[in-house]
């Protein structure tokens, strides 16, 4: 294989890889309402980076927290936050709202 061919193949490979890293991150929506997560369980594929789009419809702030996912993020009332997670092994990763822990419980199910 000549150097120019290698270069050309490399450029094609890079061009094909680019959209994968830049665009193909799946988004999963979770809504906080009345201090509860809806849906309470989010199913995501194993070994992939995904983004949780968490919309807080309550007037009060909430802190999305998960020891298993190692995530901790305050979401102001009426605001939406992006929480990047993964790639993860299959399993159940609970999360909760720290400011309303009695009701705000949920989990990411990786399969």
């Amino acid at each position: 294989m000549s150097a120019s061919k290698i270069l050309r193949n490399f450029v094609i490979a890079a061009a094909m890889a680019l959209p994968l890293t830049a665009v193909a991150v799946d988004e999963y929506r979770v809504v906080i309402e009345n201090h509860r997560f809806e849906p309470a369980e989010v199913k995501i594929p194993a070994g992939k980076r995904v983004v949780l789009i968490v919309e807080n419809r309550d007037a009060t702030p909430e802190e999305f927290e998960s020891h298993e996912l190692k995530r901790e993020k305050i979401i102001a009332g009426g605001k939406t936050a992006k929480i990047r997670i993964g790639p993860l092994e299959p399993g159940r990763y609970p999360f909760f709202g720290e400011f309303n822990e009695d009701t705000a419980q949920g989990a990411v199910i990786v399969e």
Partner: protein
Amino acid sequence: MFSTGIIVFREVLEAALIISIIAAATRGVAGRTAWIAAGVGAGLCGATVVAGFTDVIADFSEGRGQEIFNASVLLLAVLMLAWHNIWMAAHARKLAGDMKSVGTAVSLGERGLWVIAVVVGLAVLREGSEVVLFAYGIAAAGAAAGSMAIGGLVGLACGVVTGYALYAGLLRIPVRHFFTVTGWMILLLAAGLASSAAGYLLQAGLLPALGNQLWDSSGFISSDSAVGEVLHILVGYEARPAGIQLVFYVSTLVAIGLGMLWSGRRSRRPAGTPAADKQARPVPASS
């Protein structure tokens, strides 16, 4: 009411423990109480401002603002703790010696003291802004607000009392070991804060994980148990650390440790060689 108290207690505890370690570590230094008080005051003002601008901070850098802000606050605190410890390594012997002979505060000048105000201020800022946000939620709760506010105040009081208990406990350590112990505590505290900062930067996708989960010791000490939380505050315990967190932890430990050694050696040099030094000044070193 009970759960409100717990949440406030948790947030207050972290700041309270950091303040009590700092207060103990600067024992015997003239003027340190005023600097700590200034730090608490500035931290409370800052916490209110940060809480008010939560939206603005969060929207910065494509929604990574909160993580970047938290990591910056933590890393600044690490820098200040490093400075403090390296500075103290040069003065600890004089302090320990003077404390035994005079029993009163020693003036070391105020050159190094603004650092403790910054450390205290940053701790109060970080934890306080969460309390302010949470309190806003309570205020919006309406009917239940009264009992929740009482819970919050009880949580605040418990946090302060626990911090004071740690301070009182540390003061019982014999003088000749005292600054060694507080030095180690600040060293581990700084390493833990650095690891937390790495956690936030990882969460923002700004650092590679280098292993999402090095180990899982949550079956042994869970992160949400009381022991786990206190260990997290004091020595940066993580039940499921990422590789990058360990890298930050160890690098901080080594960097500050070397700085302390260097500073301690340098301060002893004018009195003679290290061996002669021990014989020349037996009072602060032993007894």
